[in-house]
């Protein structure tokens, strides 16, 4: 009997010690949650998904503390283990949160990457077109602003903050849209078939005048950056020209950097010692039409009352390595200027137009920019 009691006590002690050695929470469960926590931190969840991360981490910290501090960690097998249940729920929720954040990150990353590439392309297209149309058309501040925003967006992207990168990229896109709209507004007339027809008519009339008067005439197409010399209604030769830094615009006031459009005449010829620009042909800008537009702009408040109409518009020379733009004049390489100078006289008509065809560079550029805007 005594032996049976002794065996029972021994078995009980063994069972008891086995049970008492069983941890209340499986260590691998804690490790798994810890791993989820590390993964959330490594993908930057505390910064990019602070609410979700805090919800997880706060529960995790709370449970960790409770597991560590609870005295009643040793349970009988039949006792329910609330901590384990809670930890398993947290593991499931943490895993789901991690998957959700990873998915969102991947989506944001892809959207930001794609948007940055699109904006790079748009900015590059805009800059290329602007460059092709003549460096430094005064675009305003938007392009610089868009460029700065794009740089910031790239910086946030590099830091893995895709949401912020996307948000800044969207601002850059809006700024670029504004710029493209402004550019379209300024240069729309190059794509306007009626305007192009009017320019063509002016050119044809000048050529006809040259033919009937058996005299030279000069035609300047701003979009082509070309000056053509006509004699007796026949084109003798064409030369590349450099225009005002804002040369594609129609001149309105002094200092606008624009090259005027219209019918002019040579009013004076300046030889080598009379001009710092090799040789020069002074034009009768502003003519009556220029003055009418200028006064109308003053009356409408488009330009200040104190504005001046400007003057001293010339066709002049410059060595080929010199300035790439003018303040509004038409500039030829010296050798071409020499030829032109020798073939014209005071009174020679000079017709300056924007474009001669509807399918000009600007019209095509505007169409492309519009397409990009629509696609963006």
């Amino acid at each position: 009997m005594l032996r049976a009691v002794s065996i029972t006590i021994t078995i009980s002690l063994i069972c008891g010690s086995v049970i008492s050695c069983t941890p209340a929470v499986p260590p691998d469960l804690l490790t798994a949650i810890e791993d989820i926590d590390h993964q959330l931190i490594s993908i930057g969840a505390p910064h990019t998904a602070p609410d979700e991360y805090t919800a997880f981490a706060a529960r995790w910290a709370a449970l960790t503390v409770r597991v560590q501090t609870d005295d009643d960690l040793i349970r009988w097998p039949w006792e329910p283990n609330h901590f384990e249940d809670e930890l398993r729920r947290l593991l499931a929720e943490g895993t789901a949160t991690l998957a959700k954040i990873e998915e969102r990150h991947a989506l944001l990353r892809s959207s930001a990457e794609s948007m940055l590439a699109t904006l790079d392309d748009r900015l590059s297209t805009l800059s290329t077109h602007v460059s092709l149309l003549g460096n430094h058309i005064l675009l305003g501040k938007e392009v610089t602003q868009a460029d700065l925003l794009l740089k910031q967006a790239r910086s946030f992207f590099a830091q893995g903050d895709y949401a912020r990168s996307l948000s800044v990229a969207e601002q850059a896109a809006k700024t670029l849209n504004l710029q493209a709209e402004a550019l379209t507004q300024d240069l729309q007339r190059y794509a306007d078939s009626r305007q192009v027809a009017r320019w063509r008519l002016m050119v044809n009339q000048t050529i006809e005048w040259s033919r009937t008067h058996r005299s030279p005439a000069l035609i300047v197409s701003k979009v082509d950056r070309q000056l053509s010399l006509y004699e007796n209604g026949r084109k003798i030769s064409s030369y590349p020209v450099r225009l005002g830094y804002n040369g594609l615009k129609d001149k309105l006031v002094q200092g606008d950097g624009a090259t005027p459009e219209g019918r002019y005449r040579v009013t004076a010829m300046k030889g080598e010692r009379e001009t710092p620009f090799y040789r020069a042909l002074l034009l009768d800008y502003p003519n009556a039409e220029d003055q009418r537009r200028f006064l109308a702009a003053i009356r409408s408040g488009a330009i200040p009352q104190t504005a001046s109409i400007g003057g001293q518009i010339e066709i002049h020379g410059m060595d080929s390595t010199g300035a790439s733009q003018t303040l509004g004049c038409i500039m030829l390489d010296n050798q071409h200027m020499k030829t032109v100078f020798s073939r014209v006289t005071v009174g020679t008509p000079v017709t300056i137009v924007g474009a001669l065809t509807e399918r000009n560079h600007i019209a095509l550029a505007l169409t492309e920019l519009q397409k990009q805007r629509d696609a963006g």
Partner: protein
Amino acid sequence: MKSMMHIVVFVVLIILTAAGCAKPPSDKIEAAEEAVKNAREKGANVYAPEEYAKLEGKLTALKQELAEQESKFAPFQDYGKVEELATSTAQEAAIVASAASQKKEEAKAAALQAQQVAQEAVASARDLLVNAPVGKDRAAIASIKSDIEALTASLAQVQASLDKEDYQAAQAQAKAIDEKSRAISAEIQEAMAKVKPRKRALK
């Protein structure tokens, strides 16, 4: 025997009375809450988000333990763990707050440094433009003026971000301005290199 019974009853009553007097350590709990709040105010949720999230967790655990003890019959209440948690939470919160403050100061210093570099780069570009010699190519240089104006305006955005304590944005903005300003300065220098002193024409 009767006397012995009296002593036992007396001792039990003393124990029960003493246990019944157990009160939550309100001052320590408040101190812990205040310390966590202070850590947040010091920017811990932004500059030490992992640690701050864990702090909030400890505060939650503390409150759960407090609620559990309060739900017990008075003689069995034991606020020892609550007190221990409150003390350790307050201590950790102070460490997190200090670390967050330091990180925030570092971010601020980096942003201010970037702002200064950007300001200098813009000023340098502006000086180049102002000091560009009068000549026909002044036209080309003048057209860059709007770029510099845009950069100058953007400097105000850096300051606005600094004022909002968004040092990450301030730094990104300042770096972009610096990069752009340097590119513009190079462009101006290139344009200036072509300049030959000539008499200026009126346009």
